[in-house]
């Protein structure tokens, strides 16, 4: 079991579901950002697992390709987290709260 692709994919799906749940259920903007990181890393795990089991080619090069995509996702996630945090800080300064359900200026 520990050496099959299914195990990695199930773990990845679990992590993604936890992330999704967190994004939908948490009111705090920081927690939501953290949930997004969780979802991204679940995807990373899936990519790396696919690569290790030869989905991009059964050679060393195929494994490296998967790692490169994973690194790419990590850097994009870092950039996204930076921008997201900056937005949250800006909104926080304005509304004095990190809770997203109180950001309702667009409702009217």
């Amino acid at each position, binding site marked *: 079991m520990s050496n099959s692709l299914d195990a990695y994919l199930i773990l990845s799906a679990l992590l993604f579901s936890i992330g*999704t749940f967190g*994004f*939908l*259920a948490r*009111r705090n903007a920081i927690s*939501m950002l953290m949930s997004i990181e969780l979802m991204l890393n679940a995807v990373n795990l899936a990519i790396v697992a696919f690569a290790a089991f030869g989905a991009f080619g059964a050679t060393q090069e195929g494994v490296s390709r998967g790692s490169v995509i994973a690194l790419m996702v990590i850097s994009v996630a870092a950039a996204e987290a930076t921008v997201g945090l900056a937005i949250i800080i800006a909104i926080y300064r304005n509304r004095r709260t990190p809770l*997203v*359900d109180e*950001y*309702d*200026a*667009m*409702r009217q």
Partner: protein
Amino acid sequence: MDILIPFIAILPFLGFAFTALVGRRLGKQAHWIPVLAVFGAWVIAMLASYLVLSGQAPLAEGSEDLHAYVVPIYEWIPAGAFTIEVGFFVDPLTACLLIVVTTIGLLVHIYSIGYMGHDPGYWRFFAYLNLFMFSMLLLVLADNWLVVFVAWELVGLCSYLLIGFWFKRPSAALASKKAFLVNRVGDVGFALGIMAIFASTLALGRPTLNIRLSIELLTTEGAVLLVPLTIIALLVFAGAMGKSAQFPLHVWLPDAMEGPTPVSALIHAATMVNAGVYLVARANQLFAHSLEAMSIVAGIGIFTAILAASIAFTQTDIKRVLAYSTLSQLGYMFAALGVGAFTAAIFHLMAHGFFKGLLFLGSGSVIHAVHDEQDMRNMGGLRQKIRITYVTMLIGSIAIAGIPPLAGFFSKDEILAEAFKLGFQWIWLIGLVVAIMTAFYMFRLVGLTFWGDFRGPNELWDKIHESPRIMTIPLILLAIPSIFLGLLLGLPFGDSRIHHWLAPVFDEGVHTIEELRHVEPPPFVFFGLDGFLIVVSVAAALAGIIAAWRLFGAELPGIRISPRPERVRQLSARLPFLYRASLNKWWFDDLNHLLFIVIGGRVAAFLWWFDRVVVDGTVNGIGALTVGAGRELRQVQTGRVQNYALGIAFGLIVMAGSYLILAGR
């Protein structure tokens, strides 16, 4: 002369513009400019008419005997190959109309100085009168259908303004509206007729609205017409019916008597109501080519004549008797046009213009004398108090009754004789009955007004006085043509002067009719058929007069008959239906009320309901649906990030799920 002719119309217009702009400040002097303007127009019109009628005017293009002035004014609508050129055209027919319009117009202007002297709207009255003169002269001078139509509407507007001159009186305001609306009915026909003429000439490849040219084109042998000639003629005639108040559009004219009496004399007796007769005479060739249209014109004319004459029997308002008499005489003119006696119609138009103008101005003088009383039942014996009015009105009455040698005899006899000789014996017979009736109701009017004893309050009797000279002089001046016009134009019989004048205008039309009908009227024989017809029509007039004398009295030199009101009552009791029909104007007003106000009102109410509920309901329903949908659906937009994210998640699940299900198959 070419330079002067436009001024016939321009002078009254300048008078109108000046009086309308500064008349208020002129107060009681406001009449000077309008009267002088019309006098100027009269002088030029007389000169032009003289030159045209005596044959000194140049020959018209393409004609050997038609002397006419053609004065182009300007290009109104230049549109490529098609242009509307405004121009004036003075041929013998226009000249005859010019004589009537300007002469009576001038005398009515002078008369109004006295009649309207105490009216606060003095300047306004003269401004309107001048506007009317301009419009009417434009109507008879114009050589283009479209300009005629514009003038046609302008005289209608003036008629509306002048009937409602005393607009504070509800009855006058209503009467003016009625006249305007009834005229619109006819005008729709006229407008359609003009469009049909234009479309037909366009289809023939030479679009034009010039009256002479278009008629010539449409009546060319073998021309294939877009609209049948009969339809065109009848549409034009519909306009004539409205303006000349022919059945069934006759209802407006009696009510038009709500206007000041000079207006009744000028517009509603002598000039504007003749416009229809003029129009049909002007388009005589158009009508001549369609015997059906001619028969309809004749039938409607003679029917109006007898209908109106029967109503005039029982009316008690002096002006209304004259109004119905006008209707009846106009009916005569249309009957003459319909049988093809165009010259007789124009002859009667001229004669009628003068003596009916005289009668109306005389009735105004009577009303003035008895202090705004119009009911003849409260008059009587006025002969002793207002001599000049009495004598002139008596002349007018004899003239309209058709006693030789006054004007009405010649013109009316010519209509009857021509109708008989052209094969319309039934029109001759009805016309003869109408002649008896005309003589009767006119002498009923004279008897009730001037003879017998005064029936009004005694204190009024002492206050009755003759009108000022400014009013009696026009009466005398109108009495002169009422006596002599017939002698001047109607002699010698069978080859009269007016026939010489108008022959170039009407000859072609008359020939066409004779060809189409295969009749040739016998030549004039004095000691034969024609003499017999003259004797019969004079006898008819005398019979009517004597019948009136026996009932309503007479006080002429050598004839003294006292009125017998009890006999009048007896007679009217013996014929209850006819009496009530006449008194109620054959219920035409009630019929119109039923048709257009009661039934028409119901239809309008239904349409209004339909519009409100169905049409507006649909439009408003769509609006309301959109607004409601927007109001309800906006709940979806919560503004919360997580709700949107939930939507995305669900969407993802649905898409992924359906992919898996489909791919798993």
